């Protein structure tokens, strides 16, 4: 009897605890309130942004000293928040709201319950675009730790809700035998039918994925600087353009930037997936070529290149590091004949060095009209440079300009177009200059980017609490098909097949 009483008491205690933790949130708009002339303090800043009609609920956190309750009225939808100020918007109601308001503005009113009563802040709007964004966003999550790594992985987020799937994660605990890094995930033409990523250190190689199958290859040859680095799948062929880079990083002692990531040498490679062979596209000792990117029709390859007049020598590293801020990259393109698989002569596309600037990560819009790139003061690893901003060039008339509304005072880089060309997703360190986060901006038919918004999360505090950076956000139309278990098997249990080198 005594024992059964103990269990009953314990169960009841736990139940009471569980119930008490489910405190109620206001469910209706206050009937009496005072209008104030301030804007509500909200995070993330979703004021007056253009959003896709298929985006996940855009939860916010409202801050107001002394307020005990909040109500956020988004069109016909009412979301309440207790003293923590965080909304948890009903996803079904949110989807209906966006569907009903495609191409329209939704007014958002924020109410706070202060000791003197309810107040209503100045409203803002969410403009719902007609065009959806691709359904999935892939990224790497990694600490902005500079040399070491432990647990990291590639993940895929369903943009219409908060589901995040693991594509691949490395070893979760430190292990000399298994430690490896993964990077540079890349997809062919917004589809996950063909994709790849690199594995560095233990179990190294490049994992090539075709549908539900995968294998690991190694690019290694005396005439190749290093393994393949920045990839770009040809839009239709089983070909991948890689840069091959000898990369190092150095740490500032007293500078506005923290880190410089530098290439001592780099070339461009073409990898044939079916033949498992590789050859040089560009190989030069007086230029550093990197960041290849195919045009949507596959007829040209865009890339960045910096003049490097120093002859390769033992002291090249020291000379390159010493001149880190004078390395300026321009964007070139080179024609490609898919039938003969031959390249033509390079053409200068963006002459940033002429104005004392440097470019990186060229990406062509799906309609082939715009070249989106990052421009900074120098170098090519712009995600560590405050000066890095997104720029576009209209390929029709060579007009280049910054995407001012989408940019910030901090670094923006590693951008990706949506398959309909109306959205760009990119990494930005604008929240705190340290941790990169994914921002999404509408790109209108006039070639202007709108104010960017932070990738929505169920908990608005997620971005504050997350001690990892989002790397290389890539939009795709579909989810990755291959299972994590299969990729684990490929990485851990198979040897990389060495790609043959073609002269």
């Amino acid at each position, binding site marked *: 009897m005594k024992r059964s009483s103990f269990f009953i008491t314990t169960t009841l205690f736990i139940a009471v605890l569980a119930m008490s933790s489910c405190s109620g949130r206001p469910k209706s708009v206050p009937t009496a309130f005072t209008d104030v002339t301030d804007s509500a303090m909200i995070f993330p800043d979703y004021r007056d942004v253009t959003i896709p009609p298929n985006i996940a609920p855009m939860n916010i956190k409202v801050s107001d000293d002394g307020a005990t309750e909040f109500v956020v009225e988004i069109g016909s939808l009412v979301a309440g928040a207790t003293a923590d100020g965080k909304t948890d918007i009903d996803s079904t109601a949110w989807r209906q709201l966006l569907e009903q308001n495609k191409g329209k503005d939704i007014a958002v009113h924020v109410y706070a319950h202060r000791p003197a009563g309810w107040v209503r802040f100045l409203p803002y709007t969410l403009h719902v675009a007609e065009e959806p964004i691709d359904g999935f966003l892939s990224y790497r999550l990694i*600490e*902005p*730790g*500079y*040399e*070491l*790594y*432990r*647990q990291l992985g590639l993940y895929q987020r369903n943009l219409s809700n908060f589901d995040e799937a693991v594509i691949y994660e490395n070893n*979760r*605990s*430190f292990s*000399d035998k298994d430690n490896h890094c993964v990077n540079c995930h890349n997809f062919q033409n917004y589809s996950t039918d063909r994709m790849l990523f690199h594995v560095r250190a233990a179990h190294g190689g490049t994992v090539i994925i075709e549908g539900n199958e995968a294998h690991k290859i190694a690019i290694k040859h005396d005439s190749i600087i290093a393994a393949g680095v920045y990839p770009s799948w040809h839009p239709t062929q089983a070909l991948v353009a890689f840069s091959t880079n000898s990369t190092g990083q*150095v*740490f*500032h*002692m*007293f*500078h506005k930037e*923290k880190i*410089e990531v530098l290439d001592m040498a780099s070339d461009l490679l073409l990898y044939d997936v079916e033949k498992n062979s590789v050859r040089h596209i560009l190989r030069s000792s007086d230029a550093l070529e990197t960041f290849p990117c195919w045009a949507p029709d596959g007829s040209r390859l865009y890339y960045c290149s910096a003049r490097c007049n120093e002859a390769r020598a033992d002291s090249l590293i020291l000379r390159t*590091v010493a001149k880190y801020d004078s390395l300026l990259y321009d964007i070139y393109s080179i024609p490609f004949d898919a039938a003969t698989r031959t390249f033509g002569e390079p053409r200068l596309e963006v002459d940033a060095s002429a104005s004392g600037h440097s470019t990186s990560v060229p990406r062509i819009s799906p309609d082939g009209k715009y070249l989106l790139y990052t421009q900074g003061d120098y170098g090519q690893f712009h995600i560590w440079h405050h000066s890095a901003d997104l720029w576009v060039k209209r390929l029709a008339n060579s007009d280049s300009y910054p995407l001012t509304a989408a940019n910030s005072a901090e670094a923006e880089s590693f951008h990706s177009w949506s398959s309909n060309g109306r959205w760009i997703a990119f990494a930005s360190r604008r*929240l*705190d*200059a*340290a*941790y990169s986060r994914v921002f999404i901006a509408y790109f209108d038919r006039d070639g202007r980017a709108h104010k960017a918004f932070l990738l929505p999360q169920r*908990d608005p*505090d*997620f971005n*504050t*609490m*997350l*001690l990892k950076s989002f790397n290389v956000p890539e939009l795709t139309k579909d989810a990755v098909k291959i299972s994590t278990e299969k990729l684990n098997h490929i990485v851990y249990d198979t040897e990389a097949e060495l790609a043959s080198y073609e002269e």
Partner: protein
Amino acid sequence: MKQVPFINSHYRTFAYALLFALAWTWASWWMGDIYRITYENSYLAADSTLMHFLWQQSFGSLWIAGRALLLLYRWPLLGGLAVALLLTAATWLVGYCLRLRPRWRWLSLLPAGAWMAWVAWTGLNLYYESEPGRTLGILLLGVLVCAIDAFIIWTFKSRSANHKHHSGAPATVGTWVSTVATLVVCFGVPVAITHVRHPYARPLTHMQVQMLNEDWEGMSQTARDHASLSYRPLAAYYAIALVHTGRLADDLFDIRLDFDSLHVVNYSGEPDVGSNYYIIDCNYAAGLFRSAEHKAVERMTMEGPSLATLKHLTRLALLDHNWPLARKYLSILGRAPFEGAFIERYSAMLDSPERVAADPEFALLRQTEPVMDNFESYFEQPVFLGYNCVLMAGRSATALQHSLLANLYSKRMPAFLERCQALMGSTPQKTIAEGLVTQVKKNPAIVQAFPQLQMTAQMYTGFLRNVATEMKDRPRYARQLFDSYKGYYPYYYFFGNLKATRKSDKKEHASSNAGVN
């Protein structure tokens, strides 16, 4: 009927009380500072995003439970109380489960003793490049397993009339002898392990606790109290204390700087020199804020967030006037219990460069912040003061003094003399004067540049005369001479830090004593 002595009839009460008292003493006094610093190297919050790094690991939930218990070590007496209760409970449960006859009751003490011995053997690896919740997590698991076992036995016992036990039998003298002997072994072995294998662990962590309390005088006194111990982390934290007390030039060579090996292992379980133990604190204290941040982020990458790392990153973000980043780290610290005082102090500096500038610690450390940019990899070893070995421009006299002392410490005499030019015409401080006289034979011009060195030079001559014999076999006599010459730079120059000197001699400075550490 023979009367059973009270102490025998209440054997269990007395034995457990004795065990509890000893365990509390060991866990709070002997191990208190060590676990207090383990607590600083841990982090626990009720937030799935923040704890993901730990939760997803094998045994992650166990380590989280261990970290939860570790929270009590915010106050070592309380943490020690919890550990003592668990050790006592474990012993009782083992005794209950095994139903030992009186003569074998001492066996129930062995699991607790084994755990304590393991903790002692682990030393600084309780937290250094390893999971801080591990030892307490395993203790909790052990107690839980015993409790479940006891519960099953209890349930079984109530349904079985045949269950027989001996726990109520009175003890004998023999029982007491075996119990006390076991207690002596169980507590003596861990204490001896700590004392012999990790003699640096208690003074080092005590200094770190004093550092948390900003008791800089206390820190340097602790180091001097253990001056004959020679381990890099002790020297590093001693130097930090001297930076804060402004006595670097007076007291730097008051402790042995020969650097015996630590018994620590790295993430891979390989023996390690332990430089990562102090590198963040040292870089920070040397005004090398970017390098401190670099190393702090690296540590967070490898170990997940810890209170120590987050506090460093908060201060560094404030020094960088990066308010959003400081706010982020303060928010994360705010999710951990008991850090209100730190949050209150540093939250007040948000958005206020004036308050950052007015903070006494920040103001002190800013004095040695570099004035020119360079890349970290261009700076030289040793990691702490050595960064300033190559300092050719500073923002204060303190920066010059640190550079001079770094070169004296590293025995880079040409670089030391080069920087001494800035002191010409003034009376150099004692240690710097002692460094200068060691170079007079090679550079007679020093005497003209610093005519005040006459007395110091005479002392130096006397020193050379006194140690002429020992000079022929310096490694042999170094330790013996330390007590007589501690704090005297020429002693350090010839007899100090010889292991590192020999190693670097072969590499790059065959004709000098340069390149220590």
